[in-house]
């Protein structure tokens, strides 16, 4: 018996050592190092396209938390409730907001309140969906809440109503604005897109024909402190990212002058959405690929303009959202992807393995359409909201 016990212990130790070795070969930090050196292309196979609801969940490999999303609603008579959902990893609704206006997308604030854009207003609601704040101004695509309590918003200024793109003479009526506003609705900073067309043309080497929603901007984000910004002032903390999807262009604006400092994209990305800066200074972009009919998520080093990481499927056409959508890099190195047109939200590892996959069917009885964006939050981040909900239920 003694002989067998020793053998068993030795075998166990060998397995542990082997696992430790393989783990060290695949840690996210190591993947990040590799990303800097060359483009890592990761792919996944297509799942059964007709499966719905929760399709994959590998808890040990996921960034476990809560996912926030809403189905865009076309509205219409009688549709008086517009739900926004917070679901757990098993696809169960943990909390639901019911809004008066039809939300495009929402983000959860650290204090547990929710902000959502409805195309016309940016609205803040509490856990019971009571409106506590709103800011008017055709805010249809992007906003960011800032650490100082202010908001960065991307909006369009229209001549007549929020959806009218052209006037009677087919001239564009929507003028892009990026603004920093205070909670008491004062505009602290404003960028007027139409004043920078010449800069854009010079940087791109292209002639821009300003028709329709030529300058439809689906992103605004203040760059965080990053090491690239220390090497190149264009990417320094405080400058602002924009994304004109109709021109397939992303760029960076100088906060102090409003000048466009850097642009990238035409000929490489198509109709992209939601570029966002990662901790390593790279940009994560959902490249919709509306011309090539397949989408990908890419990580770009803006300094070298090299794509250092890319995710698509094989066959490529199986991952495709010609419009909307976003990608979010999670704290464990995984990436949450919203394939908006298909109401699909999924999480992949740096190696492209799908570890969570969910297709929402919540819109089937509510009249909702596609999902514009989705966000994953850690349990810690959601705590204030859950606490508020618990108190409300106790009273109830």
């Amino acid at each position, binding site marked *: 018996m003694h002989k067998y016990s020793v053998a068993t212990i030795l075998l166990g130790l060998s397995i542990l050592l082997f696992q430790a070795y393989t783990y060290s070969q695949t840690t996210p930090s190591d993947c990040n190092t590799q990303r800097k050196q060359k483009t890592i292309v990761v792919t996944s196979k297509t799942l059964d396209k007709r499966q719905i609801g929760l399709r994959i969940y590998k808890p040990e490999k996921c960034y476990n938390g809560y996912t926030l999303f809403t189905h865009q609603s076309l509205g219409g008579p009688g549709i008086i409730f517009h739900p926004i959902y917070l679901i757990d990893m098993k696809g169960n609704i943990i909390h639901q907001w019911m809004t008066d206006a039809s939300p495009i997308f929402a983000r959860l604030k650290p204090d547990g309140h929710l902000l959502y854009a409805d195309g016309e207003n940016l609205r803040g609601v509490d856990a*019971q969906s009571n409106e506590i704040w709103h800011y008017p101004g055709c805010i249809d695509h992007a906003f960011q809440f800032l650490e100082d309590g202010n908001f960065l918003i991307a909006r369009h200024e229209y001549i007549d109503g929020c959806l009218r793109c052209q006037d009677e003479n087919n001239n564009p009526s929507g003028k892009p604005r990026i603004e920093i506003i205070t909670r008491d609705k004062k505009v602290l900073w404003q960028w007027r897109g139409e004043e920078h067309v010449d800069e854009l043309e010079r940087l791109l080497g292209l002639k821009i024909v300003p028709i329709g929603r030529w300058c439809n901007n689906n992103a605004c984000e203040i760059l965080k402190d990053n090491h690239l910004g220390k090497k190149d002032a264009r990417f320094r903390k405080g400058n602002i990212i924009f994304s004109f999807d109709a021109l397939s262009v992303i760029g960076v604006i100088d906060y102090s002058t409003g000048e466009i400092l850097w642009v990238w994209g035409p000929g490489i990305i198509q109709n992209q959405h939601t570029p966002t800066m990662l901790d390593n200074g790279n940009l994560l972009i959902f490249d919709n690929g509306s011309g090539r009919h397949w989408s990908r998520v890419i990580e770009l080093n803006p300094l070298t303009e090299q794509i250092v990481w890319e995710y698509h499927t094989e066959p490529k*056409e199986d991952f495709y959202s010609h419009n909307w959508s976003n990608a979010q890099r999670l704290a464990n190195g995984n990436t949450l992807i919203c394939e908006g047109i298909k109401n699909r939200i999924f999480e992949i590892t740096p190696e492209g393995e799908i570890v969570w996959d969910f297709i929402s069917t919540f819109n089937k*009885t509510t009249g909702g359409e596609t999902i514009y964006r989705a966000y994953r939050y850690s349990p810690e981040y959601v705590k204030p909201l859950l606490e508020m909900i618990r108190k409300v239920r106790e009273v109830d």
Partner: protein
Amino acid sequence: MKKISLIIFAAILIFLLVIILNIVTPPKTYDILNKVLIQYGVQLEKGGSSPVVRDFKFPAKGKTFHTIIAQEKETRIEIEIIKPLSEEAAINYSESKYIIITSLYGPQIIPYTGALTTITDCPDDKKPEEIITEVMGKPVRVLLANATERYVLGVWEDDLIKQKAAFAVLYDRENSTHYQIIIFQPSESFDRNVVLDILKSLKKHPKELEN
């Protein structure tokens, strides 16, 4: 020989441990559907004893939104309750619900490229059938519609149709309460009489009637 004895001993030990854990852990108890419905002053005379498998309630804008899912054997009852809701809002809301459900079986935009969703128009024989029945003394429109194995309406491809549902919305004016009821049964054994009987059995609770 000693090794085999040890394995048998370990197996017996694990078996006993599992039994002990089962005894110590209290069985998961579920409310029955009527126990949840009583707070709204109604009950289902048929299907009301089905165990509740999901009970999700949240407040929003001064209203309570309550989703209850009960399932007994192969019959699943999903009820969504909104209270209070004005009659005018309820009429509009109900109408929109029927439009939404019907439109699920209308022409669809292809969600995927490729051959799997070539049927983008629902054949007439797979579209919802509308019938009128009486619930709580009022005529109610009922849509009999196909659903997937995961209880999602809006499906018409033969191999995906696994469930069939009766969908109805109704309004209790006295209590300003709006109900959306969906009753599912496997499509192969779907019995419309049984399902409609469940729906028609929604009644005011006797205590509510006394008041």
